[in-house]
């Protein structure tokens, strides 16, 4: 069954293949998405970036993409297909494409590859990622100021470092306002199952949280929050349409600036493989407008955002203790990126047990 589903997904991916025949002097930039380009979240974010790239560089580029490419063996075929079709630069946009990207890159030394959110690079493979935790910290600050219950609900996907880092950043932000702020965490064990995300949101609302935040893809939790009259944060895309009176802000993935920068480097002949981890200041993520909150909270959020942008504030700055009470960061100490990228522990003040 699984095989068949994979076959289906690949054929769906091939259907989504859009190749525009163009003149040779155009630089062809290609994208591989794990989801649908209209998923309302992660893959849509990358596709927005692709469209911005087309608008910004106009005649100098042409783009192509494959959507619904499953992580695993099929990814390799999809990436290879792209490389063969004359792409000068290929962005593989999901963590699970990592090994496939490295493998295909070896076969096509003249094609440049960039892999999102991974950690393996080579002579023609660079990596890029966004410091989403900066946005999560701001959300934590807002949550602690807006919540009357003093407890937020967190709908998480899978216990991988990226998600754990997000939970910790959210709570560090909340604790900077209210050291007693609590969080209830529900692992949905899925990235996108609207029904299950809605069920998780209802369970959390029933247990008395008055703020919801999510690390899953659909707008279902936002709809539930709207129905229950509580507040929520959007994820990956601005979800204000699903909750005009509900969304406080959202972390919006804005890969466009990065895609433009890297494509320009290829055109100029200056492209080198790099390991990029950009943040708010680089514009790789942005905060959706601060809405549905009192003016003083909005002002506080904007101040925190400005401090993170200027580098004055790093969310992971000591003193921070781990959940078990041991010291992690000393007063004024800033976490190194390696620890963040491999994060497998909760900070003090989170009552839940981290699934291992």
């Amino acid at each position: 069954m699984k095989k068949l589903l994979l076959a289906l997904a690949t054929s769906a991916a091939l259907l989504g293949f859009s190749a525009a025949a163009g003149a040779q002097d155009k630089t062809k930039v290609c994208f591989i998405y794990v989801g649908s380009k209209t998923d309302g979240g992660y893959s849509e974010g990358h596709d927005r970036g692709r469209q911005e790239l087309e608008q910004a560089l106009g005649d100098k580029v042409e783009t192509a993409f494959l959507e619904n490419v499953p992580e695993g063996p099929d990814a390799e075929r999809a990436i290879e297909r792209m490389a063969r079709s004359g792409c000068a630069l290929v962005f593989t946009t999901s963590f699970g494409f990592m090994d496939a990207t490295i493998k295909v890159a070896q076969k096509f030394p003249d094609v440049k590859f960039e892999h999102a959110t991974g950690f393996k690079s080579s002579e023609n493979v660079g990596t890029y990622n966004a410091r989403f935790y900066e946005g999560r910290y701001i959300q934590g600050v807002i949550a602690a100021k807006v919540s009357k219950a003093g407890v937020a609900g967190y709908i998480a996907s899978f216990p991988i470092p990226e998600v754990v880092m997000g939970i910790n950043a959210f709570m560090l932000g909340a604790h900077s306002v209210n050291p007693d702020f609590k969080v209830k965490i529900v692992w949905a064990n899925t990235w996108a199952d609207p029904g299950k995300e809605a069920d998780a949101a209802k369970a959390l609302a029933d247990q008395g949280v008055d703020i919801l935040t999510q690390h899953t893809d659909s707008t279902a939790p936002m709809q539930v929050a709207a129905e229950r009259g509580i507040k929520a944060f959007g994820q990956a895309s601005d979800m204000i349409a699903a909750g005009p009176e509900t969304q406080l802000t959202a972390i919006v993935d804005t890969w466009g600036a990065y895609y433009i920068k890297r494509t320009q480097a290829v055109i100029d002949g200056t492209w080198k493989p790099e390991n990029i981890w950009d943040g708010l200041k680089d514009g790789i993520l942005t905060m959706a407008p601060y809405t549905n909150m009192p003016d003083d909270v909005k002002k506080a959020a904007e101040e925190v955002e400005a401090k993170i942008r200027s580098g004055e504030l790093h969310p992971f700055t000591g003193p921070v203790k781990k959940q078990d009470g041991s010291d992690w960061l000393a007063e004024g100490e800033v976490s190194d990126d390696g620890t963040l990228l491999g994060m497998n522990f909760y900070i003090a003040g989170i009552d839940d047990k981290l699934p291992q």
Partner: protein
Amino acid sequence: MGMIEAILLTVITAATPLVIASLGELVTERAGVLNLGVEGMMIMGAAIAFAATQMTGSPYVGVVAGIAGGALFSLLFGFLTLTLVANQVATGLALTILGLGVSGQIGEPYAGMSGVKLQPIAIPLLADIPFLGPLLFRQDLIFYLSIMLVIGINWFLFSSRAGLKLRAIGDNHASAHALGIHVIRTRYLAVMFGGACAGLAGAQLSLVYTPQWVETMSAGRGWIALALVVFASWRPWRVLAGGYLFGAVSISQLHAQAFGIGIPPQFLSSLPYVATVVVLILISHNRRVTLINTPASLGKPFVPDR
């Protein structure tokens, strides 16, 4: 609203699509046809129902469109397996794959839109009963339909002449044919009924459960509905019980997590399936009863001799 009431309401919403899709498949299988395309028909129903609702503004038009869409889509399965006598298992899988793809195309213009929710209808007097009223009598149309389907199908299969004929076809199509019962015609109707139910279940997903369209939003519920038919040993009331058991365990595990009881969520997530397997073992320990209920001609092709 009390906590228990709130939890039960969530359970009802989660269980309804499973029960409806499962009931449809039950009738199809009682006629001896195994249609593994429930997931595909369900997602088609969800996409068509959502699209029709967005176009007309009325979720009731959406419900009708979802039912019709599921039934029409199942006709493709009927044609391939009943007229052309293609392999039922392979065709069912193909139907699922096709449904997931085509629904993506239908739904694409509507992705990211906020849908119109099918509003609850309060039944006069009954809705005012404390506790039970809000749970059972302030629900949406599709929930009421799900209960009527259980009662109706149970009556049809075991108390009506047409139901007896349908079961006879499922148990021995050659004998039924010899008696002059229209095997192929009945099976076509049973397949379409299954498709209509799966379409209705899909409409519940995109109009009640989560009023939005997201590709592959059925997320495996069609497969669970298929398993429920076996779980229920082809009896409508057991489908209802099984669907609600599955829903209850799924929702309780989310609540257990939110309470922070410290049990690994991977284990909690698997609980509904574990519970299903345990009950299945308990039910099927009596092989005789199981055999009596299993349609003997299930999945076997039938070519009438001329």
